[in-house]
């Protein structure tokens, strides 16, 4: 299982040719209490870096970008009723969407867990 991170604090966890996308624990802590998540429609094609979802805390709305190119094959509908799950379990139940990855080599440009932790240390 491969998990990669973007500089914008999204993660993508590859399972087969499907990538599960969410935000890092650092990101959820920075956002604060999540009160609303807007998810894309299933079947939507996203280019790497395109807006994939919107997450809203009490204070502000933030865009979530597609870490790699792909087609949305599933979204986490539970976030509609319980958006706070993003804060409670960002890496697990708080996932946003699943992408059918178009080109797995795009993952190579993203950070590994270790690199990401270093990155977070460097900015906090």
């Amino acid at each position, binding site marked *: 299982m491969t998990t990669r991170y973007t500089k914008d*604090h999204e993660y993508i966890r590859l399972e087969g040719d499907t990538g599960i996308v969410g935000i890092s624990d650092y990101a959820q802590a*920075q956002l604060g*209490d999540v009160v*609303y998540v*807007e998810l894309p429609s299933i079947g939507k094609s996203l280019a790497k870096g395109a807006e994939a979802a919107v997450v*809203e805390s*009490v*204070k502000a709305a933030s865009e979530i970008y597609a870490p790699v190119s792909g087609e949305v094959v599933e979204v986490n509908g539970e976030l*509609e009723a319980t958006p706070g799950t993003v804060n409670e379990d960002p890496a697990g139940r708080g996932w946003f969407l699943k992408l059918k990855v178009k080109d797995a080599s795009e993952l190579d440009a993203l950070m590994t867990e270790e690199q990401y932790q270093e990155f977070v240390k460097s900015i906090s």
Partner: protein
Amino acid sequence: MAEPVHADETLLKTPLHAEHVAVGARMVPFAGYDMPVQYPTGILTEHNWTREHAGLFDVSHMGQALLIAEDKSHETVARALETLIPADILNLKPGQQRYSQLLDDKGGILDDLMVSRSADEGDSGRLMLVVNASMKDADYAHIQAHLPNGVTLKRLDDRALIALQGPKAVEVMAKLAPETAGMTFMAARTMKVAGLDCHVSRSGYTGEDGFEISVPADKAAELWRAILADSEVKPIGLGARDSLRLEAGLCLYGHDIDPTTSPIEAGLIWSIQKRRREEGGFPGAARIQQEIKDGPSRVRVGLKPEGRAPAREGAIIATPDGREVGIVTSGGFGPTVNGPVAMGYVSRDVSSVGTDLHLVVRGKPMPAKVAAMPFAPHRYKR
């Protein structure tokens, strides 16, 4: 996701800055000050705590000042201030506070403020003003430029301001200052709180019962700790202060009111007492009297989105058939309402409660209804 904002060394600090940092508050720049936006428990918990118990807010960034008549006459100082604001200050009783607005010549709002008249006879001819942090230098310059001889403005930069808000506020305050229990909403007194010389008003910015306590800066931390020692009290940051005031339907200067809005458009006619409505004598009186008579062309209303998506400041307001009728000036998630709430200005013809409108969020029209404010009922001690 946006990068977090880092504290800037040039920001001003309130006398309570170290108290916030010590408990792990997240500090952000606000009106030139390094202020706590939230404490580790987060905005939702802080908001709910304030509605259910008592929340303690550092609002020392706000501007406190005295307006002083040299002849010690209330009439002198009241008449001087009445040339700048539309509230009736002449008939403000000793020990009472009033909400008002500094107006420009067109009746636009330069700032909103609290004015209180001391209950102490020795303080005759003095009014205490509390203005917004972001506007204080401009306000003081404006006031000073318009004062007649014999009336002076004295900045109270050596004082901190602490607000205690929530249904348990009075119980907590009464232990530190028994006199506070007998005060009603908008009463103001000087008194000892936890043995410290303070000026206390029964007011606030959350819709809850509560107090605002002005204290000398060098005693602020001592007072902060004395109040926080009560198990009913937790510190609350600016994030929850904003969601609390939004649910209470209260205006935030620079967002819901500014020089482009009049107090009548903003729904603040209640703050202009009868004598002033009739007599005028304040900046922009002609326009304001006209708006009172004919109704303004647009008005501030509450807006309740029907879905879960918050509509924030800047969202366009349209009719269901696509006619643009206004703009959202404040909006977000209301934790007590448990859903999105907003306020904004709309044309008067679509301003009645229950009117169906659309709020355009990220290019998409979201159904919403004009709603009565406050969204969360006021619980003032009348």
